[in-house]
């Protein structure tokens, strides 16, 4: 099966991949060495770097349409299917993900132009290093290399989360984030060591080839569970998700844009990529499908519930991200190209919408000094434009057509239903409606003073006191901030209406799940197989209907949330029955690092049981 002669790879496009990683690092070095440069220079340099990387990623994406792009670092081309080097592989899906990363980074840096209180040029340098880490992680085709860039992403993210050192919650959130993510990374590394002991390989393609057709014994299952653990911690899947709400609640809004928009999704991507390439030939698909659809379901439901109960707007958005990650996981876990295409499109649409929402929340924080929905009641009444944007984003989050979230959701729903889970569409509709409804409720309260004024302390939950991000007062509609917000929403809208763009996700997904092609192309430079049976990614009647239903349901939930005290007696009784379990659920989210670590072990054991026990 594998060629004997030394192989030749197309070099020109391949150089783009390491350049995309190196450029942000070099510019970051310039920013670090040139601390004394004026503010506008460092701002401009950083935004230019992000846009430059976006351009490089775009070029890489264009080269992947026909063929994957394979770059062996150091020139260590494989012989006889073996190489001592590290490979970077781009297919349309991860090139698109890298492009999304760079685009969001440009938006975030634009948003923080001039007004952001930053520690010299260090903030921009950290953001660019974060970008480099994400690029490296997306393009990497080697398991240990993925771990290294995963840690790069993580380390810089911990520092960015704790940027507002004056804020008490900020530093605590940063530490929780840091310890749990690092723990996940070390567990993944243990998994890498375990797999290495059996196969002697570290590259994804080589591992996949070595494990092909092997009987899944304890080592393979254990290796899979350990390696996935780190990626699932990053993806904030229940029960590894506790850190995300803490981190989002305290990080500056521009940083949250990246966390919710791509970083979490990169964790999911890593999990899917490792499963498909390394374990796709050995672990039975039905087993994995069952296990992870369940996990995705639990994640979505738990997070949606927590989302609706929040009064801290950024925490609310964080839980909605976790809920959506649950939905993405359900779609990816169907192990079909359709599910993957739907999830990818949904991720892209969600990124734009969620990023815009975080920037809007940041705008409110900087203008009114709070992100507490109750405290901000009616404060935004004079700013209808921002209010309308907020509501629009909430509807888009719920899946209003023609945003990209709606079409992604629709394709994913169909894929899940076809995979044998008829309750799938209902889950998607309800979860996206609940999270969208929470956002709409918050928007109505803040910008339109709807509903009765909330009173009382309520349950002991995280209130929205927070330090501002900016050091000076800002005008009503700061141009750079508004540009970033509108641009992001527009991006999500446009992706849903341009057929050439959204149908490209079908090709991307098909390439992603084609593990034999990936292995062959990486190890032997075999040309990419022509793809037949592309999954159909288009607007169907059911996706339009379900999207509209979700949006309407979101509005209903929002009003229910606003006027719940005036609910008729039987409804109120039902609501009260949910009280105790809800209190327990909220109590579990304690903010205590020890609890989080214990849950990581429980989750690890749980996944091990779900995947391993049926195989005995």
């Amino acid at each position: 099966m594998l060629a004997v002669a030394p192989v030749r790879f197309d070099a020109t496009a391949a150089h783009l991949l390491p350049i995309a990683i190196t450029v942000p690092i070099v510019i970051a070095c310039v920013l670090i060495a040139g601390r004394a440069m004026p503010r506008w220079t460092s701002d401009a340099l950083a935004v230019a770097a992000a846009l430059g990387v976006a351009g490089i990623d775009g070029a890489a994406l264009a080269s992947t349409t026909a063929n994957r792009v394979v770059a062996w670092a150091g020139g260590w081309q494989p012989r006889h299917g073996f190489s001592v080097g590290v490979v970077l592989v781009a297919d349309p899906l991860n090139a698109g993900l890298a492009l999304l990363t760079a685009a969001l980074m440009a938006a975030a840096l634009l948003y923080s132009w001039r007004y952001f209180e930053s520690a010299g040029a260090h903030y921009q340098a950290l953001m660019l290093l974060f970008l480099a880490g994400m690029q490296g992680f997306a393009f990497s085709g080697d398991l240990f290399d993925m771990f290294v860039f995963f840690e790069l992403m993580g380390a810089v993210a911990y520092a960015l989360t704790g940027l507002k050192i004056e804020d008490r919650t900020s530093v605590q959130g940063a530490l929780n984030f840091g310890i749990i993510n690092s723990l996940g990374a070390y567990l993944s590394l243990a998994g890498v060591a375990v797999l290495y002991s059996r196969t002697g390989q570290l590259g994804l393609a080589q591992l996949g080839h070595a494990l092909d057709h092997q009987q899944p014994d304890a080592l393979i299952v254990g290796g899979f569970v350990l390696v996935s653990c780190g990626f699932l911690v990053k993806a904030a899947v229940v029960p590894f998700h506790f850190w995300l709400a803490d981190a989002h609640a305290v990080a500056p809004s521009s940083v949250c844009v990246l966390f919710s928009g791509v970083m979490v999704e990169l964790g999911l991507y890593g999990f899917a990529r490792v499963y498909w390439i390394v374990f796709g030939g050995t672990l039975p698909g039905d087993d994995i499908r069952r296990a992870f659809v369940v996990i995705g379901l639990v994640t979505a439901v738990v997070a949606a519930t927590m989302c609706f109960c929040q009064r801290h707007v950024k925490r609310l958005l964080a839980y909605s991200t976790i809920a959506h990650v649950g939905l993405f996981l359900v779609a990816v876990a169907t192990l079909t190209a359709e599910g993957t295409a739907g999830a990818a499109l949904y991720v892209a649409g969600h990124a734009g919408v969620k990023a815009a929402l975080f920037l809007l929340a940041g705008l409110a924080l900087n203008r009114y000094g709070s992100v507490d929905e109750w405290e901000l009641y009616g404060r935004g009444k004079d700013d209808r434009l921002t209010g309308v944007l907020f509501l629009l984003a909430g509807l888009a989050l719920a899946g209003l057509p023609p945003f990209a979230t709606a079409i992604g959701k629709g394709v994913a729903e169909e894929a899940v239903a076809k995979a044998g889970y008829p309750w799938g569409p209902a889950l998607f509709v309800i979860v996206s409606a609940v999270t969208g409804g929470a956002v709409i409720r918050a928007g109505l309260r803040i910008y339109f003073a709807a509903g009765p004024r909330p009173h009382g302390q309520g349950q002991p939950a995280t209130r929205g006191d927070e330090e501002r991000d900016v050091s000076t007062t800002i005008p009503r509609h700061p141009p750079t901030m508004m540009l970033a917000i509108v641009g992001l929403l527009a991006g999500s809208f446009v992706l849903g209406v341009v057929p050439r763009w959204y149908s490209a996700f079908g090709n991307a997904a098909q390439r992603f799940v084609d593990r034999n092609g990936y292995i062959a192309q990486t190890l032997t430079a075999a040309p990419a197989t022509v793809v037949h049976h592309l999954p159909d990614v288009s607007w169907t009647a059911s996706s339009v209907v379900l999207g509209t239903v979700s949006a309407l349901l979101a509005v209903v939930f929002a009003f229910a949330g606003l006027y719940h005290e005036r609910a008729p007696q039987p409804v109120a009784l039902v609501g009260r029955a949910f009280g105790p379990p809800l209190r327990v659920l909220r109590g579990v989210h304690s903010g205590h690092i020890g609890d989080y670590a214990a849950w990581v072990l429980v989750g690890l054991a749980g996944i091990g049981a779900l995947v391993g026990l049926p195989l005995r």
Partner: protein
Amino acid sequence: MVLFIIGGGCVAAMLVLVFLDMPAFGGKHHPYRDHAIPAAVQHGTANVVSAVNFDQRGIDTFGEETIMLGSVVGVAVLLRPGEHEHEEEGPATGRVLDSTRLAAYLVLAVTMIVGLDVVLHGAITPGGGFQGGVVLATGAHLLYVGGRYPALRRVTPEPVYEAGEAFGAAAFAGLGLAGIAVGGAFLANLLPNGTFGQLFSAGSVPLLSIAVGIEVACGTVVLLAQFLRQELAIRPNESG
């Protein structure tokens, strides 16, 4: 605690099952090693670990030294003086025994030489940029051990060392990009291989080792300086 017992117990059981399936400790089956050694010898690198680090899996090392860069910048950001704090001169020379001071000065000279040696000979002896860089940085801090914190601060001005760290990282990246321009692949080994076991061997490995050494030494100095400054020099503003 209950959660830990349940979770920990199950994970322990899982780990036992996994370990029992692994090849026995001390076995002979190491396919990656069997390919890495001839590749290292082919490029004239006597220290195979350095060959793997800088030559074969150089992009991992690139990522790792970027983590170092990011963490040091992150610490600088996290330990910066806050809004209600200011930075003072720092305490005057500390009180230490004369013998401690003498020992610190003597060992400092030796440490610096050892550190330089480890960095430069990364390709032929155990060691390399990382190890040598840390030795150099902690060697400089023997001044602090000898009770001369102000002297340490004069010798290690932060902007200079931050620039040095950035330079080291950029140099590594530059060598990588040069690999694309000249050698056809990122971080390709560019220079002639030289004689096995001599100082000028192994192509670009010594250069990469030196770049990393500069970066790690400067970075560690900045890192330690941040912690020392936070403890010794940053004080809250007088209220009222």
